[in-house]
């Protein structure tokens, strides 16, 4: 059937409209909201703080712990039963791996930095939105970071290569490849890479380069939101 034009009229390499706000959960040590298209992620950071149970403590460094949670009414159809499950646990793990390279918690042995991300509304690209929000929340919490990781899903929809697939594109009848990528904007290094679907090896490099460009744009949104946190009212 091919894919002559994107369902929502975007350019192939254009991410959906974005919005970010920092400090949305006052009780937390740091927090941020990130919206891309119809996907919304709220991240809150607590820590470094005491870690329980004790057996999880690492005497050489603090640990980063990410929790990803889709709210029951956030799915595309049926209610999502609370409790996370294996998908949420896996996303928590890849979030940790995506962010760990920029954080050094050796000065905080036996502690944990907890990142909780709740999503009240989802339309694909959720783990990427979660990572982007988490990065801002960690900065807001005063955690030292070499730079801010950002993430976006790239891939293939039918015969076209695109940036930031939405739910309908992921479900295109001709098939799609959904490739979530997290990158460090300064160094261009990839810290998260996964794929659902199929793609030719030669095309992977191309979509990763598209991802890099998009991630630099997303990083600008992150930086602006963090600066706006302290703007003179």
């Amino acid at each position, binding site marked *: 059937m091919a894919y002559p034009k994107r369902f929502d009229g975007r350019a192939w390499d254009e991410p959906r409209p974005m919005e970010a706000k920092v400090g949305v959960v006052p009780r937390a*040590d*740091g927090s941020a909201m990130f919206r891309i298209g119809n996907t919304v992620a709220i991240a809150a950071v607590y*820590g*470094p*703080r*005491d870690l329980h149970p004790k057996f999880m403590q690492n*005497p050489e460094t*603090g640990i980063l712990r990410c929790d990803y949670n889709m709210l029951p009414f956030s799915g595309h159809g049926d209610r999502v039963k609370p409790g996370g499950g294996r998908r949420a646990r896996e996303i928590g793990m890849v979030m940790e791996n995506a962010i760990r390279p*920029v954080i050094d918690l050796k*000065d*905080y*042995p*036996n*502690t944990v930095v907890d990142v909780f991300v709740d999503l009240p509304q989802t339309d694909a690209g959720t783990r990427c939105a979660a990572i982007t929000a988490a990065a801002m929340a960690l*900065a*807001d*919490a*005063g*955690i*030292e*970071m*070499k*730079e*801010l990781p950002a993430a976006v899903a790239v891939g293939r929809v039918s015969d076209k290569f695109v940036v930031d697939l939405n739910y309908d594109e992921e479900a295109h009848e001709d098939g799609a490849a959904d490739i979530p990528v997290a990158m*460090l*904007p*300064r160094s261009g290094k990839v810290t998260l890479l996964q794929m659902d679907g199929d793609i030719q090896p030669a095309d992977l490099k191309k979509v990763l380069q598209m991802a890099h460009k998009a991630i630099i744009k997303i*990083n600008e949104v*992150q*930086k602006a939101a*963090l*600066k706006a*946190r*302290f703007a*003179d009212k």
Partner: protein
Amino acid sequence: MTETIHIKDKTIAVPGETLAEGMSVLPGAGTYRDGDAIVCSRLGLASVEDKVIKIVPMSGVYTPKLGDHIIGKVTDILLSGWRVETRSPYSAVMNTKDAVTDFIPRGANLAEYFALGDHIVIKIVNITSQHLVDVTMKGPGLMKLQGGRIVEVSAAKVPRIVGRDGSMIQMIKDATGCEIIPGQNGWIWIKGKPQGEILAIEAMRAIEREAHLPGLTERMKAWLTQHAKR
């Protein structure tokens, strides 16, 4: 040697932002060197002085430092002392010998001296490599707190609330009639009449919000004078 400083003094910098370029510029706290560039590693207010760029944090949990005067909360009674929460990832221990000048007999009920939930003003006297913290209550200004109210502020903002040589906090005390003891860990004890306490807290919240904006001292002076008349 050429150097370019991109960031303006007293503006907000975010992690990953290139603050300056050139090997003659020196990376201070909250920054790191990446090749030729100095890069921000912590959200905060950039401070550019001579050739040193550092970041003054606006947030972050309190990290215990030797010599700090903090307000702690008793959370456990131990065999020969008390466990004290420091509002940081690391709790502290106060030994009976560091608690009071009176002699505490062995086997005494330590809860009679300091009970769970009591707030105390203490000084950090030792931090081990494993971040175990020892505190003492023997020394000027250190004591058990009675009555009053504990206010939570960001530890990063306490210096601003205290002010240079304690000038800001003195202004608040004079205007509100409250006793105020600030802890470097972000717990601040105040005691006065309810109206006075509320005013003092409002003042501290205002300083928290506007710590990075210029002219704060003048604004607070005017605000306090105006509200003290109420």
